[in-house]
């Protein structure tokens, strides 16, 4: 632990820390562009210069200099001030003065730092260089003249996203950042380069010229596009959510978010259900709330089935359960019917952050890149930083890293191929990840558990048994009992008279042909097409909700905007309906509902990882057959919100289906 002195303040820093980190620990702000905590060190912007003794009598780049014993670091000396001014002047030589028309304005590192550390004027009188725009796909808009060549985007795509398609071509003044031959970036995480870009060279294409950052109301929320539970910030103006940005949470999403998380928000204003509908003579007709409630009352017999969709919050599911009773609940819309007697056996026990430490990982029928892109980046990290080995059972797909494919035959679980068995023998922290692509086959769950106990995946201080969900509502639903023995088919076989569908758009409605179907949701998608009554509810941005992510982490998001038209928050709909049905629910506010919910399921009351313990159910483990395919065919169109989003449709057309879009004529 070297001791250094920063501006007269003596402090001890961890071994291996850089001078920049030492300065930060001392509470000093060091301006920087290329340095980023989560990327490798490049040291090419030279903005973080400080004076260090002993050493050469000149300013040194602090980001690339290790802190050593006895260093005396000065961050406020005249030499440092002059050096920063000089670097800033050089950076601004080729940077256009187009801040008024630049989308980065107001949240631009270069703008802020030139105010704080710049000279105030330039002495450069020659021509500035100009660079042609580069095409980077439907998410990233470029204005490469603004680029200061920090290479953060290059390092991000290589190290985190795992695609080596972005690079710097040319040299010296002609160096340009571009994707390979200007093809679209083939990544689910391309939107992150927009946040990483310290200037306005890479900006968000869907959000171009929409708003200035200071006009926006910022609301902390939780993403519902997948089961990772990405911590996001919803930026809204008036009634519209204009963008979603990741918040930093090292346990969940670090500071990344998938493109779907970021850019599906424009779907929140399209195809919305904004008034109740009743099916009359086969046609849905707009109605009042009272008429809709009366229609439901006519089919009410004291209990009902509830099918929860993939994006529902726990409060909604709890309110529906309180009204409909808990005998006919199901959340696994697509027909999965795995055993839920032990929640730990269907949980991502290693935790998202923990999977980074695994040394051997077996993927069973999980297309992580599409099902949970931010878990995929953790595995990428495990491989890069710790040399983890990844094996996979399932159809071959590009996961952005090296995978040893063991074929798609499930028998690999019963009898591990030699390469896998050998790797497991010496592994200290082995893990298995069972995805939805495998869980639908009978016996896979049991076989995976048997595999886990055979190779001791669960050992002291390490639990390597993971099931990967990809619905934001799944773990919360399971905690609230939204799992019927035998799955949705067995539930439908009970022929419920009345069935509530909580924004369930992926369910097979033909199973419920005999039921009176009430759709409580926000988008006019598959579910609304089949409903007998539609009650317009709130999307995730329009209600405060509790979500449990795939590792059992309880998180709460807040309401950013109000639901459109006559739509209401879902719990309030059930509360109002309960009055009409003569079974008044005992809560009049969200707070009261939460108290009830916490009493019923105490684990939901504590934010953070829920403790399911570890217990292994005894399940049949005979497996045969092959994994035919993965559940997610089109990453960009997995739920009603994305399907309503123009950006996601464009991404799907271009990146999944390869449609060529012509650039608009300038």
């Amino acid at each position: 632990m070297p001791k250094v002195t920063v501006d007269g303040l003596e402090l001890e820093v961890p071994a291996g820390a850089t001078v920049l980190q030492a300065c930060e620990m001392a509470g000093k702000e060091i301006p920087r562009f290329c340095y980023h905590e989560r990327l490798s060190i490049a040291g090419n912007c030279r903005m973080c210069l400080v004076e260090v003794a002993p050493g050469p009598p000149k300013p040194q780049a602090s980001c690339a200099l290790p802190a050593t014993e006895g260093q005396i670091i000065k961050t406020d000396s005249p030499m440092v001030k002059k050096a920063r001014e000089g670097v800033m002047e050089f950076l601004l030589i080729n940077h256009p003065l187009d801040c008024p028309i630049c989308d980065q304005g107001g949240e631009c590192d270069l703008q802020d730092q030139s105010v704080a550390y710049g000279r105030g004027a330039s002495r450069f009188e020659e021509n500035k260089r100009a660079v042609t725009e580069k095409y980077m796909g439907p998410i990233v808009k470029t204005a490469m003249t603004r680029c200061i060549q920090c290479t953060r985007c290059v390092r991000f795509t290589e190290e985190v996203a795992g695609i080596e398609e972005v690079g710097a071509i040319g040299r010296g003044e002609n160096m340009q950042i571009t994707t390979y031959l200007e093809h679209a970036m083939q990544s689910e995480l391309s939107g992150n380069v927009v946040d990483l870009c310290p200037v306005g060279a890479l900006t968000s294409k869907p959000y171009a010229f929409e708003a200035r950052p200071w006009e926006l109301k910022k609301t902390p929320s939780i993403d519902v596009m997948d089961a990772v539970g990405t911590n996001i910030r919803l930026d809204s103006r008036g009634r519209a959510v204009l963008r979603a940005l990741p918040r930093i949470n090292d346990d969940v999403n670090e500071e990344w978010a998938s493109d779907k998380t970021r850019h599906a928000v424009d779907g929140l204003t399209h195809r919305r259900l904004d008034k109740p509908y009743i099916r009359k003579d086969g046609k849905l007709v707009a109605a009042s709330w009272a008429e809709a409630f009366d229609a439901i009352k006519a089919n009410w017999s004291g209990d009902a089935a509830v099918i929860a969709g993939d994006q529902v919050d726990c409060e909604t599911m709890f309110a529906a359960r309180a009204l409909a009773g808990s005998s006919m609940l199901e959340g696994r819309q697509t027909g999965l019917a795995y055993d839920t007697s032990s929640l730990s056996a269907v949980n991502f026990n290693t935790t998202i952050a923990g999977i980074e430490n695994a040394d051997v990982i077996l993927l069973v029928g999980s297309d992580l890149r599409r099902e949970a892109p931010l878990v995929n980046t953790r595995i990428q990290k495990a491989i890069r930083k710790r040399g983890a080995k990844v094996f996979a059972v399932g159809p071959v797909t590009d996961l952005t890293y090296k995978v040893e494919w063991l074929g798609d035959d499930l028998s690999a679980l019963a009898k591990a191929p030699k390469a896998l068995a050998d790797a497991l023998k010496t592994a200290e922290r082995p893990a298995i990840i069972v995805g939805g692509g495998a869980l639908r086959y009978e016996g896979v769950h049991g076989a995976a558990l048997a595999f886990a106990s055979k190779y001791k995946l669960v050992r002291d201080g390490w639990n390597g048994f993971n099931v990967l969900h990809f619905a934001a509502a799944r773990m919360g639903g399971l905690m609230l009992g939204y799992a019927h023995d035998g799955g949705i088919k067995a539930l439908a076989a009970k022929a419920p008279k009345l069935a509530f569908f909580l924004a369930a758009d992926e369910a097979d409605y033909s199973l419920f042909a005999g039921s009176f179907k009430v759709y409580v949701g926000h988008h006019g998608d598959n579910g609304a097409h089949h409903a007998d009554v539609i009650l317009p509810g709130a999307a995730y941005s329009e209600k405060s909700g509790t979500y449990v992510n795939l590792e059992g982490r309880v998180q709460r998001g807040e309401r950013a905007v109000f639901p459109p038209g006559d739509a209401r928050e879902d719990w309030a709909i059930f509360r109002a309906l309960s009055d009409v049905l003569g079974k008044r629910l005992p809560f009049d506010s969200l707070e009261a509902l939460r108290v009830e919910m916490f009493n019923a399921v105490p684990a939901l009351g504590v934010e953070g990882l829920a403790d399911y313990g570890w217990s292994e159910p005894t399940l049949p483990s005979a497996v045969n057959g092959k994994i035919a395919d993965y559940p997610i065919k089109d990453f960009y169109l997995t739920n009603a919100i994305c399907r309503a989003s123009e950006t996601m449709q464009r991404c799907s057309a271009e990146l999944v289906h390869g449609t060529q879009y012509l650039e608009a004529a300038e």
Partner: protein
Amino acid sequence: MADAAHTPNEADARAQFGAFAFSAENKKTADIYIGRYPAGRQQSAVMALLDLAQRQVGEETQTQGWLPVPVIEYVASYLGMPYMRAYEVATFYTMYNLAPVGRFHVQVCGTTPCMLRGSDDIMAACKNRGLVKGATTPDGMFTLNEVECMGNCASAPMVQINDDNYEDLDYDSMSAILQDLSDGKQPKVGTQLPGRHTVEPYGGATTLQAMVDKNHDYRGEY
């Protein structure tokens, strides 16, 4: 490289070089280059292999060769590295041509020492023979480029034509070299001054004269 020729259309390049593969001989050489690096580090051979590929393209097209996109991709996949990384290397170094060049690639040094010693005359000699900066002559013989220092300042001015340097040039000797080349003759490589062999002082030593014939201890004279 404002004066660099434009890279040809990607589709054309793919049509022409899509089936590019190392010749048996070059494959052997390539594997020797790769073998010089430890296993798993074969990407380190990318520069040598790009050069090899460029030379093979040169042989195939009877020119000095260039690197069309499919050839860069071939080298990248030969080494198991992402296309972008190989492309970055190919665009960084000026010895890789990203556009076709003629049979003789004339690179005139225009950096300060050469300029002071008359590189403008060399350029004029090229221009008078019809060479245009950044372009290939219509007969496909010469491509002219101005480059930065090639490290032959002691025998400035100089040009590099293909793999050979021609030094101590003036207008006449440069014209003669170009004439020889277009006549299919091989001009004298290296310094063009009579009596000079390499970069030894022309006209005898001007310093350390006491050491020309025998060893001499200068230390007492400091």
